[in-house]
């Protein structure tokens, strides 16, 4: 159990920039080093982690943890992932609270914010390319975006409506 915790703590400490950067790390740690899973299993968990709600890294960790040590294993692996980020963010938040008064820091952040906006734009372009394959999925992307930005629909409702819509379309196709 301790090994499970430290392994995922290590993964949480070195991963950068969201769930997708986690896959090569999982491969190296779990398949090559620990030999806890096969490559296929890791790929399988990772793709399932994307088809479940929430942070992908936590979902992947829980899958592997559950396989090694049932419910407790899932909890331990997930807590491992969040340990180092929790400490780092808390320290940064505490330090920045005071630094934010300085104009230089504000200018730096103004620049970083623009870079983040650019980064998100690129991520969105790639995501839409992957998700929108026919006219109906294009329609869903656009309608979802407009419902959230123009109509101001709560995200929870969007997820529920989309799920219901998908199920209805599935039924209709079958009939």
């Amino acid at each position, binding site marked *: 159990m301790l090994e499970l915790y430290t392994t995922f703590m290590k993964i*949480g*400490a070195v991963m*950068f*920039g*969201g*769930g*997708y950067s986690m896959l090569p790390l999982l491969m190296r740690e779990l398949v090559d080093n620990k030999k806890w899973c096969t490559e296929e299993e890791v790929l399988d968990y990772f793709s*399932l982690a994307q088809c*479940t*709600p*929430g*942070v992908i*890294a*936590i*979902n992947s960790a*829980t*899958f592997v943890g*559950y396989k090694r040590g049932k419910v407790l294993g*899932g909890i331990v692996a997930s807590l491992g*992932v*969040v340990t180092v*980020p929790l400490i780092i*963010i*808390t320290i940064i*938040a*505490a330090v*920045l609270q005071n630094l934010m008064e300085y104009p230089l820091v504000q*200018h730096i952040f*103004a*620049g*970083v*914010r*623009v*870079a*983040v*906006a650019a980064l*998100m*734009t*690129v991520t*969105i372009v790639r*995501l839409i390319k*992957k*998700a929108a394959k026919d006219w109906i*999925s294009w329609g869903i*992307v*656009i309608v*979802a*975006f407009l419902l959230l930005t123009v109509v101001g629909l709560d*995200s*929870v409702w*969007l*997820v*529920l*409506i*989309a799920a219901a*819509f*998908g*199920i209805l*379309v*599935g039924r209709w196709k079958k009939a």
Partner: protein
Amino acid sequence: MIKTILLLIFEFMKTGLMAVGGGMACIRFLQDMIAKYGWLTGEELANIIAVAESTPGPIGVNAATYVGYSVLSQYGQAWALLGGVIATLSLIAPQIAVIVLVARGLEKYRSSKLVNDAFGALRPAAAGLVAAAGWSVIKASLSLSFVPFHVDPISLALYGVLVVLMLLPKLKKIHPVLFLAAGGLIGALLSL
């Protein structure tokens, strides 16, 4: 204060349970909650996302910790610390529960027509969700507002250059954090 803590727990559990599409989708849920309760401004959240992107760890987790910290920071350092922990644990608890349930019925979940049908629409909807999250960050970062029409031209130019650079196939291998660092440097040099 108790009310704020309870709201924090409720909102982050909701996010962990409903945010289909990974950490970027969680960002949209964070935008919803800060708007609803007036916890932070769009610019403050954009700063948090910037830090979350440039520090180790999953973006969704980093941002959750930071938002939890900021929301309770008005009550002092100790409460802020607790806020970060509460937000993070509230985010991951429902996720762990969902994954344990899915892992138990793995074959059933994978081959379930209901789940597959739902995700047929959820995948593109999640892309729209992330696009909406990005749109809010773009608006906050470029001081973009339509009434009255206003945009910071230097920020817009920098944004355009960065997007083009990031899309260049040759520069694909460059780590995103380097782009963020470059943005910060230019911001300091130009006093953005």
